[in-house]
């Protein structure tokens, strides 16, 4: 994993709400290498999907600024026809909801074939053979039958496999998976994750894996970016992040997961503000850790590289503590 596959610089994606633009992805920069899995985590509404859609330029009416370079080709300013050539070929996407991401009126086979048809010169038969191969590859039993079937005849897990088959049909270099398992049961989740892992080995793609499940990240990712309110607040190697989380948000997230021996879970105060009410100045997380003194925050928070490859936004992480820790210490002290 040396070659830089995807480079995002100062990406800003804004949506129009009542005649004004609000940035849902705000100044995001990151890189992805070949054969690397980059996990992106964050609460609902933190802008993960918006980022993924921006990379594919799938947004309908959003303003995208900044640079997205895939193999040094700038996607943001690319012509529509060039973009069409890239999508589905060099880059592909797996969607969150397998129930709605397939055309209900088109047979499964045709839907997979379409992506071949669009990018490869193949005869009809050849395509069909390839589709059945793909179906087999993603672990669908009796692929010949499924070829003729319609989406509603398949279970959620099966449909997600079909979507994956579409995504990998042309062996893309960049694969974006936006919460690919959120709608699925744990056992099926495990299978799908295994599948993605296998595929990575096979096609050596760079993968962006979006999820809000820290466990999934821990199992899958090489590097992890934590997003909050449209920004990356921390980015690091997976081991580093889990063993030495720095940003208060990362710490809070890790703390909220039920874990052995803990009776009380950590609660992050407040909620993710919606797009219109996002604080655009100062540390965006400040409102949710009110016990931390204002002076701890940076005025214009930036990503700091605290160690090689480990970036944290804002200075508030430096003296961060959890209020209950204080209480515990106090009560411990008394008894």
């Amino acid at each position, binding site marked *: 994993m040396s070659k830089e596959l995807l480079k995002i610089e100062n990406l800003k994606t804004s949506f129009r709400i009542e005649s004004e633009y609000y940035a849902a992805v705000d100044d995001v920069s990151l890189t992805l290498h070949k054969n690397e899995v980059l996990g992106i985590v964050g609460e609902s509404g933190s802008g993960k999907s918006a980022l993924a859609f921006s990379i594919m330029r799938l947004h309908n009416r959003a303003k995208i600024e900044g640079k997205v370079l895939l193999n040094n080709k700038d996607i943001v300013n690319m012509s529509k026809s060039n973009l069409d050539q890239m999508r589905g070929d060099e880059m592909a996407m797996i969607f969150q909801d397998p129930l709605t991401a397939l055309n209900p009126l088109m047979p499964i086979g045709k839907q997979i074939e379409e992506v071949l048809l669009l990018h490869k010169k193949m005869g009809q038969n050849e395509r069909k053979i390839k589709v059945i191969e793909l179906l087999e590859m993603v672990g669908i039993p009796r692929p010949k039958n499924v070829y003729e079937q319609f989406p509603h005849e398949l279970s*959620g897990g099966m449909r997600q496999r079909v979507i994956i088959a579409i995504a990998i049909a042309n062996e893309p270099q960049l694969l974006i998976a936006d919460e690919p398992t959120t709608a699925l049961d*744990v056992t099926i989740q495990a299978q799908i994750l295994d599948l993605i892992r296998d595929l990575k080995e096979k096609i050596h793609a760079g993968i962006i894996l979006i999820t809000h499940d820290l466990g999934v990240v821990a199992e899958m990712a090489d590097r992890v970016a934590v997003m909050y309110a449209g920004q990356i607040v921390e980015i690091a190697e997976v081991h580093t992040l889990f063993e030495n989380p720095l940003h208060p948000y990362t710490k809070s997230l890790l703390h*909220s997961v039920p874990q052995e021996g803990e009776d009380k*879970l950590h609660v992050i105060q407040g909620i993710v503000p919606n797009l219109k009410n996002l604080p655009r100045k100062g540390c965006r997380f400040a409102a949710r850790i009110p016990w931390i003194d204002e002076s701890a925050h940076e005025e214009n928070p930036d990503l700091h590289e605290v160690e090689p490859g480990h970036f944290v936004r804002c200075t508030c992480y430096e003296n961060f503590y959890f209020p209950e820790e204080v209480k515990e210490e106090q009560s411990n002290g008394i008894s």
Partner: protein
Amino acid sequence: MAFLEVKDLKVYFPIKGGIFNRTVDHIKAVDGVSFELEEGKTYGLVGESGSGKSTTGRAIIGLEEVTGGQIFFNGKDITSQKSKDKAFRKDVQMIFQDPYSSLNPRKRVIDIIAEPIRNFEKLTKKEEIMRVQSLLEIVGISPDSIYKYPHEFSGGQRQRIGVARAIALKPKLIIADEPVSALDVSVQAQVLNFLKDIQSELNLTYLFISHDLGIVKHMCDDISIMYKGRYVEQGTRNDIFESPQHIYTKRLIAAIPDINPRNREEQFNYRNKILDEYNNAYNDYFDQAGLAFNLQSISESHKVALPQQKG
């Protein structure tokens, strides 16, 4: 006498079909489930989607017609709809999965929380407001929100309003059907903490339904694993997590992603091993129809669905 006792519960849904739209078959959503609940404890019901967890809970509280078996609450048979009298309705309450649809969007908080109170007690307007406000305080929502509408609250807050409604009549048993699965991790924590808090305060018993083993492990004293409408294993938290007996249970536990990236390989290998075992030993654990066998006790608290020992 058990607090809640479910004996051989069956809930079937008809499958309509054929030319005349007759019932041609049944979905056996719950197919012979038995368990007992002790007062003040939390009882977990786990299983994959469609395994019949919700149906079990809904059948107990009377939202589904019971096809067979019996349910006793405090020794009283409450299987049929008719037998679910007012007293029962008062004692047993439910918390729903979706904090968005479980609150009537047209009603103000006060009307939502006061609904059960109005059905059971005659209070003056003023008393009612006081009552609702005190309930709101219990669930940690500002009491001056009584005239707000649900959409003005976040998911976690809504879920707590739902809880306020459920505890308004001081129930004894609360059936919580995936109370946090629609919520973000951070908010999940908030609701789970809170459920634990009021349990001890109000001496509540929970029937806690979830598909997230991590949460169940965190919350429950006793756990049952369900598969295709039947129990595959039942036991204390330790029984289930420390010595799972049924291959399905093992597989479920193995599927939980480990939060420590260092265990990645290990976990991966373990999972594959269990999967192999599952595939190989499938026929030892399930009958021809792919259903679990009847439960067999293997310790005082631990029961597993294993084939009848012949002999």
